[in-house]
């Protein structure tokens, strides 16, 4: 890459940062060249977020230097970072839902009239110019942000960064919540920015994105700098090994198990507007992958089967028996379990302890006449900690303090305690590190081996293809295609998801 020869815009050298009890960064160096996409990789807890928070002025480094255009600068707050042209797009989009696109873009630095009042027409016009410069034509600057899709909200954030003349854009897992289509548009925008000379620090758990987009990649592990390499000099296995410090045999250890009788059958299930007549069958020991764009109705289907949003028409059969699921309590009684997409909000009550979370879905099992039996509850929680290898100081630990992977294991444990026949997993490995991901995949294989029927929703095609016995694709509230494990290839499934229209190829 020619960019390697240019002097870096931003260079961090020997950065150390400690928090009470933890050394988050130990002498890390990192730099970005102009017009470069530099990927930052590492497991959760490796120090990525601390590093980007230092770059964006949220944290101050204990030692080390930060140089901008070769000159050392003191980064004392978000204000300095912004003045230096560094903008950050966080995972949780930070917008004002009640305000318009234009105002969101210019909040804090809006154009003024000569009297010092806000210049609304200029604000709208400038926002429009920015939109046009990125070829975004389906966004109105006068729209209220709260009504926008996630993809469009992210574009508003990017516009905001550009409106401040950002030269360095830090993107923290920008594709985590995006639909495949929005991911492609994001890639196009990133490429366009790179052409303009904007440097991008790109953080993602999805390795394939790094090969598509990035010029260089830096890997962190346990707060230390492992390596910085040109992307063309590395490969998937190499990156994973650097991240976890060991070789992982296979990311997707699906074991073949005998497949039994149908456990869950869904016929013409309707819940407007997102579920418009879906039918599917999952058999004992089978893992069925449900692929589809975000917004295609995948999670909505799961939540309808699970009773969060009860069906308006159609049938659900469990073990061949027609059942009625009007509430989550119904679903639980019938042996349906759902590990939701949003772990922090839907899956757990994070300020509560491991024990309290582990028993939350089975309170009636750990109580007698409505009184909670503390010993039974503790036994249950301890069993879950042991069975899933949850790394915690004990069952009285507040869940919030655990890593994403351990939190996900608690959600899994909480629902497996209901002794389900059907397990629906919605994005089971989103935002968790490679090691924990492999563990969850291994557990899925084991559970299928024990005869559980598993329906897995995932935005990561490699995961869907690697783990599933069958793959169903969902589009616009309907199931549009079915592939056996042998038939399912990345191209065919993706094409079915998109509806056959050709999009720009995802392969670089």
């Amino acid at each position, binding site marked *: 890459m020619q960019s390697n020869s240019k002097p870096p815009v931003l260079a961090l050298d020997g950065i150390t940062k400690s928090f009470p009890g933890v050394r988050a960064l130990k002498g890390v160096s990192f730099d970005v060249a102009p017009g470069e996409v530099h990927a930052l990789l590492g497991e959760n807890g490796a120090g990525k977020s601390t590093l980007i928070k230092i770059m964006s002025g949220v944290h101050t480094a204990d030692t080390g230097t930060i140089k901008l255009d070769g000159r050392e600068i003191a980064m004392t707050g978000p204000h300095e970072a912004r003045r230096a042209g560094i903008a*950050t797009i966080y995972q949780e989009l*930070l917008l*004002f839902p*009640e*305000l318009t696109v234009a105002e969101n873009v210019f909040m*804090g*630095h809006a154009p003024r009239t000569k009297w010092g009042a806000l210049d609304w027409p200029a604000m709208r016009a400038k926002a429009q110019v920015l939109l046009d410069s990125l070829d975004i034509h389906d966004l*109105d600057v006068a729209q*209220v942000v*709260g009504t926008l899709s996630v993809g469009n909200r992210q574009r508003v954030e990017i516009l905001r960064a550009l409106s401040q003349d950002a030269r360095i854009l830090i993107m923290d897992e920008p594709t985590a919540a995006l639909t495949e289509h929005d991911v492609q548009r994001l890639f196009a925008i990133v490429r366009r920015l790179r052409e303009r000379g904007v440097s991008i620090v790109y953080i993602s758990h999805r390795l394939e994105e790094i090969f598509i987009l990035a010029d260089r990649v830096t890997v962190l592990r346990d707060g230390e700098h492992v390596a910085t390499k040109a992307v063309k000099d590395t490969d998937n296995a190499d990156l994973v090994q650097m991240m976890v410090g060991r070789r992982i045999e296979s990311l997707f250890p699906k074991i073949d198990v005998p497949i039994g009788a149908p456990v869950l059958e869904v016929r013409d299930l309707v819940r407007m507007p997102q579920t418009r007549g879906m039918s599917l069958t999952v058999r004992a020991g089978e893992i069925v992958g449900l692929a589809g764009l975000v917004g295609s109705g995948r999670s909505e289907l799961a939540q309808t089967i699970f009773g969060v949003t009860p069906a308006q028409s159609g049938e659900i059969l469990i073990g061949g028996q027609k059942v009625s699921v009007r509430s989550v309590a119904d679903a639980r009684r019938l042996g349906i379990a759902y590990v939701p997409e949003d772990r922090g909000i839907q899956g757990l009550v994070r300020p509560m302890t491991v024990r309290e979370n582990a028993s939350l879905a089975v309170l009636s099992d750990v109580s007698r006449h409505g009184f909670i039996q503390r010993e039974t509850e503790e036994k249950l929680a301890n069993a879950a900690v042991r069975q899933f290898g949850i790394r915690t100081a004990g069952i009285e630990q507040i869940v919030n303090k655990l890593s994403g992977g351990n939190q996900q294991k608690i959600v899994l444990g909480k629902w497996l305690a209901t002794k389900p026949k059907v397990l629906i997993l919605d994005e089971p490995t989103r935002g968790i590190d490679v090691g924990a991901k492999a563990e969850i995949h291994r557990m899925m294989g084991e559970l299928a081996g024990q005869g559980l029927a598993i329906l897995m929703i995932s935005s990561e095609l490699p995961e869907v293809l690697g783990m599933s016995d069958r793959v169903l694709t969902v589009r616009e509230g309907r199931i549009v295609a079915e592939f056996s494990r042998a038939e399912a290839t990345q191209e065919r499934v993706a094409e079915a998801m998109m509806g056959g229209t050709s999009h720009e190829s995802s392969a670089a």
Partner: protein
Amino acid sequence: MSATIAQAPARKWRFSLSQEWLLLIGIATLFIVVGLINPRFVASRNLQSILLANAYVAVAAIGMSVVIVSGNIDISVGSLIGVLASISGALAVAGVPVFFAWAIPVVISILVMMLQGALVAYLRIPSIVVTLGMLSILKGGLISVTNGVWISGMPDSFHLAQWHLLDLFIAAEPGKQAAVPESLSALKPMFDLLTMPVLFMLFLTLGAAWWMRNTAKGRSVYAVGGNAEAARLCGIPRERTLMMVFAVHGLFTGLAAVLFATQPSVIQSTVPPNLELTIITASVVGGVSILGGTGTVIGSTLAAILIAAIGSALIFVNISPYWLRAAQGILILVTVLADIYRRRQRGLAR
């Protein structure tokens, strides 16, 4: 993406049914209907007394709206108005120049509110708890300081309602009936309506609305109320913004207290019961979301007028005024339900 396409008609709809227009329509309908039943309701004397007696509620509701937009609430405001009115009256009776009898309570109000703001902003105690504590302190303080004695005998010039715009033009001496020139006599009814407190209400409402809409400081209130974390990253610190919000609230509360104190010839040691409730009602009915981040002060002033007009209308259609509070309750409920319905239509889930 589908949301984008569905959005276009929704915006038009929203414009056509903004809270301010709804309230205007409501006020107009009320005056027409009740006016038809009993024409004395729309006589200028009655209009004048409705506006005069409630201008202070509208002014206090401006400050309250700013506080609610910022994502907070203040339930101490009614007691504070009572305390400030007593202070103002006591100063006037003690012979302090009238201007200071007006200004000192305003300064005290700003300081008290900034103290509450500091507890909310820097110590992160929820505003409902802080203002609940302050409510007790002020209420107890008021009664123990005044001993429940009413204050009377303020100088004539103290009473703002006696100041007419026309007097300012024609005679320097307030309260005295000056000869009105021919050319202005046609406008006299209008000037009668625009007593000093009402003018205050109008200018303060328009000024605050302009400030909220068109200045960076005003928008920062919406930013902090909408998403404090996002605001911080835009360089808008939550703490300083909330201090400003409470200072502004203090300013309007102080002005409201002066308007309240200068209107009757006797200042009671108690304010109308549940005054803070009426003020919050005006804000909420005016379209300020209790969740923060949205709403305007024009709406809250219109709502204050509507609430006052309903109270007056009950008398004119021979309904016992004891039903007024029930009508207020239904009014808030209807507003809130309508708002929830509209948000669902717009896909704004909150």
